[in-house]
C-alpha cells in the first residue's frame, strides 16, 4: 500500500491505496465522492472527468498514486459553499443541457477546463473540445449552447 495526500475540493485527504488503484476508484470508493461516474472504463467516454491541478483528466486513466500531492476537483467541489451553482452548472441548468444526467458531471468538469484553456471558443471549438465526452441522450446541441454561454459571458475567458 502507498500513502498519498490529495487536496480534494480544497480539503486535504490522506489515503492508503494500492498502486493499481485508479483515481476514479479512490474518489468513489475510498472518499465516497460518487458524483464522478464511470461510463466506459476504457478512457473513451469522459464520464469520469475531474480536474487535476486545474486541468481536465479522465480519472479512470490515472493511478491515484500519480495524483499524490495534487489538487483534485470533482463535481462536488465546484458550487459555492452556500450552494450557489458554478456558472457552468447554472448554464447547463438554464440551457437544459442534460437529460438522464449520467454524462453531466464529467461534461461540466471538461467544459470548465475547456473555457479556461481556450479563450475564444466558437461552436466548432466547443464540439472539438468536448470530443472526449460522450452523451447518449441530448444530441449535444444544448450542451454546446450552455458552454458557449459561459465562454461568451467573459466570466472565465478574455472574450470582449
Amino acid at each position, binding site marked *: 500500500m502507498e500513502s498519498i495526500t490529495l487536496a480534494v475540493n480544497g480539503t486535504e485527504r490522506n489515503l492508503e491505496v494500492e498502486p*493499481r488503484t*485508479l483515481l476514479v476508484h479512490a474518489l468513489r470508493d475510498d472518499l465516497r465522492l460518487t458524483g464522478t461516474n464511470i461510463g466506459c472504463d476504457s*478512457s*473513451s467516454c469522459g464520464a469520469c472527468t475531474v480536474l487535476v491541478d486545474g*486541468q481536465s*483528466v479522465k480519472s479512470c486513466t*490515472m493511478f491515484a498514486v500519480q495524483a499524490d500531492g495534487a489538487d483534485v476537483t470533482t463535481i462536488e467541489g465546484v458550487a459555492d459553499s452556500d450552494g450557489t451553482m458554478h456558472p457552468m452548472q447554472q448554464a447547463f441548468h438554464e440551457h437544459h443541457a442534460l437529460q438522464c444526467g449520467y454524462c453531466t458531471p464529467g461534461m461540466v468538469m471538461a467544459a470548465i477546463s475547456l473555457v479556461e484553456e481556450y479563450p475564444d471558443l466558437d461552436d466548432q471549438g466547443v464540439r472539438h473540445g468536448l470530443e472526449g465526452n460522450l452523451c447518449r441522450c441530448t444530441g449535444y446541441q444544448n450542451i454546446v449552447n450552455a458552454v458557449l454561454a459561459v465562454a461568451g459571458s467573459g466570466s472565465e475567458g478574455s472574450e470582449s
Partner: protein
Amino acid sequence: MIPASFDYKVAESAEHAVALLTEHGDEAKLLAGGHSLIPMMRFRLATPTVLVDVGRLDDLRYINADNGTISIGALTRHSELEHSELLAQSCPMMASVAALVGDPAVRHRGTLGGTLAHSDPASDLPAAVLALGGTIVARGPGGDREIAATDFFTGYFESALADDEMIVEVRVPAGGAGWNYQKFNRRAQDWAIVGVAVANAGAGVSLVNMGSTPLRASAVEAAVASGASAADAAAVAAEGLQPPSDLNADADYRRHLARVFTQRALNAAGVA
C-alpha cells in the same frame, strides 16, 4: 478492469529511472502520462510488476530553441506543445499535430517521450517527428545516445530503445515550412485510420497507420525531389507498403486513402 498489481517507484531523476530499469530488467516499465500504458494494463495486455513513475520529472518538461534546433524534454505534454508560443513561431507543425491528438484531457496527460516510446503506427506525433527529420535522445546506464527518428521505429509497438533506456529529449530542426498534416478518422477523438505528414515542401513525408510502424514515405519523397507533380508523387504513396486491415478499413482502402491524403497534404504544403 483493474490492472494487475505492481510495485510503484517514483523516479527522482532520469538517472534514477535508468538505475531502477537496470535493477528490475524487463519486469519494469516507465510510467509517463500513462495514456497508453494504463489502458493496456487495464485490459491486461501489459502486466509490468514494477512501474517507474517519471511523470514528476518536471525538469524534462521544456521546449527550447538553439541554433536552428528545437529541443523538447521527453515529459513535455501534448497540451504544452499545442500551446507553445515558441513552436508556433519556430516549428508550427509540432504544435498543430499535437492539437489533433485525442481530446483535451488526453493532451493534458500524454507526453512526447511516451508517444514515441510507445511506437504505435497509428499515432500522430511520431509521424511529425519523422517527417521533420527529428532525433531522439536516449539515456542509458552508459550515458546518452542520439537515435535518428528514421532508425527509431523497429516494429509493431517496438522501438530501438533498450530495456534500460529512457528518452530524455526529442530534437527537431526549426522551420519545416511547407508543411501539412492530414488525419483521416471517422469517430471524434480517435486515432487516424490513415494520416499523412508533409514537412519542408515534401522533402519529408511520413505515413500513419500504413504499416507496422510510423514510416517515411520514401517513394513520395524521391518523386518530389525529382520534380514530380503532387499528383504523380502521391500516386506512389502506398508502393511496397503492407497496411493493416481492421474494422475501420481494409488494406486496399488504406492504400487508396494514403494516395488521396498524400496529394492533399502535398498540395496544402505548396507542392503543385
